[in-house]
Every structure is written in C-alpha cells, then in structure tokens.
C-alpha cells in the first residue's frame, strides 16, 4: 500500500547544468520500495503544475540508524523538473509511493546486464544493490551525451558492477549509442551462460536493446516512462500497447501493470517517440 508524505529535501546535489540528485526524507516509502518502482512527486501545493510526475526511486538512503529516505535522479526538462532542480534543503516535496511493478532480479548463475540511457540510469542503482545482495554478476551499459553526463560511476563500481560506457560525442567509452558495446558483449558471451537484460532510457533505445537481445535469444525487462495522471490506475492515461501470447495487443496501464514490462510484449510502434 502506497503512502503519501510531505518529504523534506535533505540535500540537492547538482551533477551538471541539467541533472541533480534530490535526497528526500521519505523513509516510509524508501523502506518498502523495490527496484524499478516509482513515486509520484509534486513540489509545492499550487494548481500549476497541477499533477504529480512519476520518478524512479534512485537510491535508498541509509545511515547507521537505518533507512532515512530516498533520492531521485532528475533531469531539467519541464516545469516540475526545473523546480526539482532548484530546490534547497529544507523544502518539502509531496511524494506518493512506492508504486508499480518492480524488476524481477536475476539469481545466480544468471547474469544481469543493465542498459541505461541518460536519466534512464535512475532505476538501476536500486537494482544493482539488489543484484549484489543476491550475488549476481552484473554489468551496466550506460550511454549519455558526453562524459560529463555519466554520473555516479563510482557508486556502481562499489556495488561490484562492471561498466561499459558510450557517449554521443565520443568523450568517453564508445563513440555513439550504448547498443555498440552491448552488441559486442552479446556476441562474445557464450550462449550457454544464462543472462537477463534490463533497459531504461529513451524509447528507441529500449526498443533497440530488446530487439538486439532477442536476436541473441535473450529477454529484456524494460522500464517504460509514459505520461501519467495519477499513478494508481484511476485515469487510464499511461497505457502502453502490450501483446501477450498470440492475442491482439491491448492497452494496459503502465502504473499498475508496469512500469516494468517484458520488452518482447511491448508493441513499440504504438508508443510515442519517448
């Protein structure tokens, strides 16, 4: 059952001119959150912007006393994300969660490959922590516009995650899409080694990852980001076309049935450009 809290901003780490990590004192949500779940966030109480916005839980924050809150990885794009970028410690943010269907973490001997594009890194810190706790060998394929937008690499290294990087401008890792190092790795991996992929990022990236993995006989769990009204199944705005079995595609709500879906069931042509 989700809870709604007025979460105090503990810190706001600005990582670049566009990205920040906002730490929120919302332990009641953080303690329940599973990797891949999201929160519905609204800074301020006014009517503009009116609706909350969905955010993946980035980190579950802990100190010696236990769980203290959660953080959001935010990219300045619209009115809510601009506000979240500018918040100072002490401000309050309404935060409802945890919501949605989480990732299903791999278990040894299965390996886990996480594929992130830009702000799509957000759900993978939590997943990496869960994978480490299970002793799963994991790799993060991470693409961004430039080296300056590859964030928190040390945190992933500390969780024992191998890194494969790519940047649009070639300033770090492969020059181009994150699917470049991913495709190389897929070719190199012995098909007998069990592997599960997870993808979060722009829709074309998740589609490409799903197709690439499928060509190598691998399954991908994707975390889709649709425009959401409520996050609880009330409004039917966040639907995605999903095809299960041999049936015709159906619109299902990504807030309840997702945001994590089996990439092979997503009818990608029916999604926006993301």
């Amino acid at each position, binding site marked *: 059952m989700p809870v709604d809290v007025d979460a105090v901003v503990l810190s706001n780490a600005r990582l670049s001119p566009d990205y920040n990590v906002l730490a929120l004192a919302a332990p009641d949500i953080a303690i329940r959150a599973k990797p891949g779940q999201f929160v519905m966030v609204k800074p301020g109480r006014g009517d*503009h912007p*009116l609706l909350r916005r969905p955010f993946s839980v980035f980190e579950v924050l802990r100190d010696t006393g236990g769980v203290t809150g959660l953080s959001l990885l935010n990219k300045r794009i619209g009115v809510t994300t601009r506000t979240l970028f500018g918040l100072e410690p002490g401000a309050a943010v309404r935060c409802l969660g945890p919501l949605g269907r989480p990732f299903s973490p791999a278990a040894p001997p299965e390996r886990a490959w996480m594929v992130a594009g830009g702000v799509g890194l957000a759900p993978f810190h939590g997943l990496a922590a869960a994978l480490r706790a299970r002793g799963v060998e994991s790799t993060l394929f991470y693409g961004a516009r430039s080296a300056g937008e590859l964030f928190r690499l040390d945190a992933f290294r500390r969780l024992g995650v191998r890194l494969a990087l790519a940047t649009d401008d070639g300033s770090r890792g492969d020059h181009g899409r994150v699917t470049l190092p991913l495709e190389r790795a897929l070719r190199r991996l012995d098909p007998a080694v069990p592997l599960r992929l997870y993808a979060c990022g722009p829709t074309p990236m998740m589609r490409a990852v799903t197709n690439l993995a499928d060509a190598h006989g691998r399954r991908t769990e994707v975390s889709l980001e649709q425009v959401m009204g409520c996050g*609880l199944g009330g409004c039917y705005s966040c639907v995605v076309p999903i095809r299960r079995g041999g049936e015709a595609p159906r619109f299902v709500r990504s807030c309840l049935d997702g945001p994590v879906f089996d990439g092979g069931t997503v009818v990608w042509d029916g999604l926006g450009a993301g």
Partner: protein
Amino acid sequence: MSVDLSVNIGGGLTLANPFIAASGCFGYGVEYAGVVDLGALGAVAVKGLFLDEREGHPPERIVETPSGMLNAIGLQGIGVRRFVAEKLPRLRECGAVVIVNICGSSIEEYAEVARILDGAEGVAAIELNISCPNIEKGGMMFGSSLRGTHDVVAAVRRVTRLPLIPKLTPNVTDVASFAVAARDAGADAVSLVNTFLAMAIDVETRRPRLSNVVGGLSGPAIRPIAVRMVHECRQAVSLPLIGMGGIMNAEDALEFIIAGATAVQVGTANFVDPFIWKKLLAGLTGYLRRHGLAGLTDVIGSLELPARNAPCA
C-alpha cells in the same frame, strides 16, 4: 455538536455525505480499495461502460494545461458484463455506494447496458454519459441535442427503476434547457459538468498534444464556469443536481453546494491527492460547525443573490 452530511440525491437514494468519486477519474473503484475506505465516500461513480470492451485512444491521452488537464482516453473499458462479474462483487465487499456510468453508440445500447445493471446486485444508481467529448459515436452526440438527451433518458427510464442521473455536457449554449429535457424524460437528478472540449498544440512539432487532436478540459481552470452552470440549472429545475468541475477542497465543493448542488463529484483532484476524501469531509464538517449549522441540507442552494437595485441608472 455532530453535523449531518447526508444528502438525498433523488430516486430514493440517500448518500452518507455529498462526495462522489467522479467517473473516469477513479477507475472501477477497486483500484483504490487499498488506498481509501470506499465505504466512507458518498458514492463511487465508476468509469463509463459500454456493452462491450473498448480499447480507447492511443497515447498521448492526457496533457497538462494551466491549472487543468486535457484528456482523450476514449472510454477504454471492460464492458458492462465483465464489470458486473469481476468488479461489482469487490465493490460490494468494500461497502461502496456504486453509481455506474453508462455509455452507448445508440439509444438501444444505452438501454441494454441499463437493463443488465438493473438486474445486478449492488448498483445504487445509473449515471448516463451523454457528454463524453472524446468519442465519435455516442456521448456528447446525444447530450448536445435536446431531442437526443430526451430520447436516451426516456429509453433508459423505460428499462430500469434505478435512480437515473444524466451527466450533462457544458459544450452547449444553454445547459439549463438540457436539465429541463432530462427532467421531462424521467431523470431523478442530473450531474454537471463533463469536460470542456479543448485542444493543445506543441508549437515545436506543430502537432496536437493529444493523439485524438481534441480532448476534455478538467481541473480548477473550469471551476467558475461549472459553478455558473449549476447556478443556471438550479434556476430552471428543482430536481437534485450533482455538481462538479475542478473541486480541489471543501471550499470549492461548497461553491457548488451553495449554488444548488445536492452532491458533488471530485475527479482531477483525486489524481493529485488520492487521500483527499478525508480532507474534504473534515473541511465540510468544519464549515458547518463554524456556521452553527446542523446539516448540509441547510447549505444546499442557499445562495444569497444581491438585490437588483441600480444606483447608477
């Protein structure tokens, strides 16, 4: 001092309080069973149902606008039979007072859906959706003509004795005349307003922001127009009115009630705050206490109109 929030919304139906979850904004109610006590709401108006399942419009289905939002969901739904079989039992368990919103592409379909609900256990009332702006056939097609309004209401009236609540569209010149037409055809109450037909454009791509091009505007942006329309209907008919349009708190609800609404529906605000219902009840109770009133019926339609003297004439 205890206060009485109960209201009689017509057709013999009394609600414990005037707050109804608005159709289209609360799923089938069961989605919220783990979040709120459904039995504590005045009633739950479930998502509009046709005879058969519908897939609705492709994304994007909503877009936010200043102090409001546009939606063009397209009445995605499971159809009335699956609703009765799969959702209604759970709603009964939760103690919800269930108002079922029904749609049709033809008058015959409205009547057939109503007939099925008439035989189902746990339906408190039928709300007739003659006002959805987002579908090609049905919805507003009926509700924007006086004849269509009359004919749908009369046809459904013939097949059920359940309280019948046509939901009116604001996309007409004179909404009060539609309340009159609904009353004359046998409605027990009317609810108003559905959303305002509207549009938003992405200037970078020069494309409409909604896949359906146009959608319905809801939220605080429409509230003053909706209050005016409830006021106009109150002058024209004496049957109970259920007001809605951008209610975000108890004070907003009181505007509608003072204008003449017996009950109110809350939709968009539930998206922002799914825990709003307790706050609405507390706010309304506080208002009645502050004004020394024993019950909500003392407030309904209590608008004090100014004297029409004209000092500058």
